[in-house]
């Protein structure tokens, strides 16, 4: 009976709020660390490969392949190398998050209008000036969109991380699954979804602010 379920769910969240809050905080930290690493590495890589189409196809091709590996397999694989716990989870999350960011950075930078680049180069911009003053600002909307994508995905994937001993809301989800405790599973999942929703919303606001300046 759905009403009964929802009632139990509400009671659970209320009575074990400390538990859930702690898991939520763990989840945020775990995701945030991965997100920051992905953003820094991903955007930098995207910038680097934008100079060479060959390098781009290699790098993007590689991350594409990694991306298609089922996440549980990826987590499991790294457990055998770096053991269980948060470190492994972060490594796996980073690998998944790289593709959207690298690809969007690359596409954003290379799709800037040729004529704009020609004008900037013709006026004596150094390569760095071209990148920082012209290309990057114009690519920003696409890059932000990629980051937004990645953030939601990372928060969701972090839910699986508890499978290999990491913290986060996945602990609740996994606990619920292994003890046949549906309300627990749903509670965990709900909070993950909520977190992703909020993060996406925040990034949407940032995106709009940046777009206002980039016509």
């Amino acid at each position, binding site marked *: 009976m759905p009403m009964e379920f929802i009632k139990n769910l509400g009671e659970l969240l209320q009575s*074990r709020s400390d538990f859930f809050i702690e898991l939520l905080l763990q989840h945020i*930290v775990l995701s*945030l*660390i991965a*997100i*920051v*690493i992905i*953003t*820094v590495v991903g*955007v930098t890589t995207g910038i680097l490969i934008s100079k060479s189409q060959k390098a781009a196809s290699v790098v993007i091709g590689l991350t594409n392949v990694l991306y298609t590996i089922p996440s549980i397999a990826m*987590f*499991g694989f790294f*457990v*055998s190398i770096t*053991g*269980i*716990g948060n470190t492994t989870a972060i490594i796996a999350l980073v690998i998944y998050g790289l593709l959207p960011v690298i690809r969007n950075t690359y596409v954003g930078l290379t799709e800037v209008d040729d004529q704009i680049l020609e004008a900037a180069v013709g006026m004596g911009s150094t390569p760095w000036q071209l990148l920082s003053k012209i290309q990057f600002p114009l690519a920003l909307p696409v890059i932000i969109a990629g980051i937004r994508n990645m953030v939601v995905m990372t928060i969701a994937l972090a839910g699986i991380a*508890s*499978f*290999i*001993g990491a913290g986060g809301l996945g*602990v609740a989800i*996994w*606990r619920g*699954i*292994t*003890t*046949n*405790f549906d*309300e*627990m599973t749903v509670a965990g999942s709900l909070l993950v979804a909520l977190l992703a929703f909020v993060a996406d919303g925040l990034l949407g606001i*940032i995106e709009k602010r940046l777009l206002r300046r980039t016509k």
Partner: protein
Amino acid sequence: MKKWISLALIAVMVILAAGCQSEEKKVVIASKPMAESYIVAEMMGQLIEANSDIKVEYKMGIGGGTSNIQPAMEAGEIDMYPEYTGTGWLFVLKNDLVTDPETLYEGVKSQYQEKFNFIWLDRYGFNNTYALAIDKSKADSMGINSFSDLAAQSGSLVLGSEYDFYEREDGFPGLVAAYGFNFKETKELDIGLKYKAIGEGQVDVINNFSTDGLLAEYDLKVLKDDKNFFPAYEAATVIRQETLDKYPELEAILNQLAGLISDEEMQQMNYYVEKENRDAGDVAAEFLKAKGLLASND
């Protein structure tokens, strides 16, 4: 640009804060992803914290169970966890089957010490092995107490089990060879539906685990494996020698669990967690208090 820099700084600070844990006394307890494991791990942790100033960190529900816990133990990432003798012997040590439970325990104890420098503490008292269960009243009326009794009357009974069990050598085929079962009918069922099936009378006998929580709900009797076909899966704490060296008091604290939990008591606790959805920690605490190992006010 500035936004990225400040975000990065926040992240660095967060990482540092999270990573900088002071050099306090701490042990890590792991559990497999099942109710029973959660409960016992909680007992271990609660006893440690009540009787010492060592902090306990739990890594509950490690996916893959032993296969991921073992390497983590070897790497020192986990200090201790509840394990089964059968699992250690067959799965970790990869030995051939030994049927006598005592020999099995001694064997696994000495080989773990030799190979990994891990110590098997005293057994808790319950044996979570494969079992055959039948409705209690039926068992009483037909006078069935053991597998052999069952075999004798199997011609009039229906067995329900999952695909895996019928296929494994150490499952049904082996059982038939050992006891000469001759069921009237064998039905194939989904693991999750076995209890329902026997409850509704669709089958008479099902295979299960001897400490299954649902046994109590359905009023089933677990039959005795008189020829010891199924290996013993007696549970005990496996702990790293290094951890014991560091905190020698742990041995005495943890051995309070020796012989403490019977099959029925484990069943009951599993029931509380799996069926009544109570928190494993609460159930563990309640049990320990009832046994006088934990002060009632804790």
